[in-house]
């Protein structure tokens, strides 16, 4: 069934999307655009992809009723445990799928960008699995604040290249990955979120859609209904949210909440709450909502969470925001830290800092009695121990 939330032939979700790329990348992007749907929908791909998700990633991930969290908020709060995926986050759903697509297209050299390092690790992992050469671009600032993931990538045989331009975070890592891609068009750019030139946003959303595909039958088993009342997910570029929302986009009775990083406060000047602070613009080859000044210069964002420290948002999310299909909320650094510690104490689950932003909005919502809420628990907090240690000592 054709949904209004699927992109048109030029890769647009409403006014957002497209492929604003230098001519050198045209053949690569066109090759992918011509082939990705056919590959993803082929029986051969589906068998390999589903087998890897089951045997290697460890899917299906549990849908866990968080009893004490539910009691506190007076609702049924389920956690979709993407943190239990191999490598510790939802990111590997996408890398497993894209590495198969890369192989079908005959590509042997893989490049990727990473913010928190989760996508870098997930990419290095599938490259190790398939015996492919892997280069990961990571902001110099993120290399410092997410050091454990840098070690993991190196162990996995990836080359980690520091991005030293701009704010030295995810935006700049993505710039460097794209510049490298321009100079090495034979490589496959294994992009980590629902961002970039079409068809990347749609391809990544389709590969993350396994999250909501599982949620449907898991909820049916547990509650008798496929649809929850509310789904909450954090959004940097937006891949875990895209996956958690995907199969519910057309079910307008399911409330979708996207949570952005407010940093030190939405209007503090140190924030990454793109929907609140951005306007229509072009970043990384896609027309979307973007934090920028009056001359179109991209503003450096800020968040304690490297994975949400991004001045744009995927074009699908820009469309969900503009159309009102999703509600956008935000959480500050402090709110996210508090939420991370609360979940750890009452449920025994240490979430990633990114994920903690989604948890942090629970306190800002008044739930109806018996409301069924799913929070996409996108990643685990092992990589954030240094920041959590500082919080404990403060």
């Amino acid at each position, binding site marked *: 069934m054709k949904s209004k939330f699927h992109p048109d032939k030029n890769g647009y979700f409403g006014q957002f999307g497209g*492929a604003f790329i230098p001519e050198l990348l045209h053949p690569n992007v066109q090759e992918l655009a011509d082939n990705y749907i056919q590959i993803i929908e082929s029986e051969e791909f589906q068998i390999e992809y589903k087998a890897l998700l089951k045997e290697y990633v460890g899917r299906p991930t549990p849908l866990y009723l968080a009893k004490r969290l539910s009691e506190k908020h007076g609702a049924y709060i389920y956690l979709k445990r993407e943190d239990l995926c191999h490598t510790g986050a939802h990111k590997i759903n996408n890398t497993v799928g894209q590495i198969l697509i890369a192989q079908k297209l005959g590509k042997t050299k893989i490049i990727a960008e990473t913010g928190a390092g989760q996508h870098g690790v997930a990419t290095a992992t599938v490259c190790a699995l398939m015996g492919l050469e892997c280069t990961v671009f990571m902001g110099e600032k993120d290399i410092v604040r997410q050091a454990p993931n840098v070690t993991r990538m190196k162990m996995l045989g990836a080359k980690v290249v520091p991005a030293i331009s701009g704010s030295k975070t995810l935006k700049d890592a993505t710039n460097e990955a794209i510049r490298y891609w321009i100079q090495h068009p034979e490589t496959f750019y294994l992009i980590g979120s629902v961002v970039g030139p079409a068809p990347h946003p749609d391809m990544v959303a389709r590969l993350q859609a396994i999250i909501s595909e599982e949620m449907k039958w898991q909820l049916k088993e547990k509650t008798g209904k496929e649809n929850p009342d509310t789904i909450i997910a954090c959004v940097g570029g937006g891949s875990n949210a895209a996956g958690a929302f995907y199969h519910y986009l057309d079910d307008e009775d399911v409330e979708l909440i996207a949570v952005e990083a407010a940093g030190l406060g939405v209007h503090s000047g140190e924030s990454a709450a793109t929907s609140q602070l951005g306007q229509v613009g072009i970043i990384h080859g896609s027309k979307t909502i973007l934090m920028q000044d009056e001359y179109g210069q991209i503003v450096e964002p800020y968040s304690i969470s490297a994975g949400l420290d991004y001045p744009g948002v995927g074009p699908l999310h820009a469309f969900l925001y503009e159309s009102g299909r999703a509600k956008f909320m935000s959480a500050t650094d402090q709110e996210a830290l508090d939420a991370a510690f609360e979940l750890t104490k009452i449920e025994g689950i240490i979430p990633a800092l990114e994920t903690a932003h989604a948890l942090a909005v629970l306190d800002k919502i008044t739930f109806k009695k018996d409301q069924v809420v799913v929070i996409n628990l996108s990643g685990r907090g092992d990589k954030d121990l240094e920041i959590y240690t500082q919080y404990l000592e403060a």
Partner: protein
Amino acid sequence: MNSIQELFKKKDKNLLSIYFTCGYPNLEDTTKVIAALAQSGVDFIEVGLPYSDPLADGPTIQKSSHEALENGINLDIIFEQLKTIKETNNTPLVAMGYLNQLLKYGEDKFCKALVACGIDTVILPDLPMVEFENHYKQLFEKYGLTNVFLITPHTSEERIRKIDSYSKAFIYVVASASITGAKGEISNSQIGYFERIKAMNLQSKLIIGFGISDKKTFTTACNYAHGAIIGSAFIKDLGTNGVDNIDNFIAPIIR
């Protein structure tokens, strides 16, 4: 008639174009650089509009753009600067920036400002052909502007033919699979690519850029095209030796 086309009527080989970044090395250098380049005999000038995230540019132009922005340059200042030399400058100017600058400044406002500065040619390396066809072709025509397309070693013949049919100023032949920045030498495979493009007998004039840095690479490029563009090598020299040294950089290339 487009100013670059007019230029080609007077001279159609060995054209030298220089790219520079507005507001670099100092905020007030924009007009000084243009005047010095014109004085030195450069045939046309690419006016770089500094952008925070220039995806098609290498480290040298990234750095100059960053410093220019730090100097406080912005589109309003640039357009004011360019207006002051409109009457005295006879060397055609081509604006080079990124699509988001045009989008945020306002498409019509941006086009009007270029026209007011006497600029009728624009290069936007991240403007794809499909977007040009669907929207920007009409916008540019409304203001008498011409857009320059880039072709690369990987652009298909069919696409080059289409670009040729859209081009009114020239086709920008990107010398290799690269972002901007000097490579030193021109390789045999690059020459094979230049020969292939030349043999297509396109109606458009061809200007080679990316990796052209000195007399030797300029002369080689001019064997296969109507001229060539030097960017990063000039920016590097400008950063080191300043505006006063411009003639010393240009003279050995064209004389």
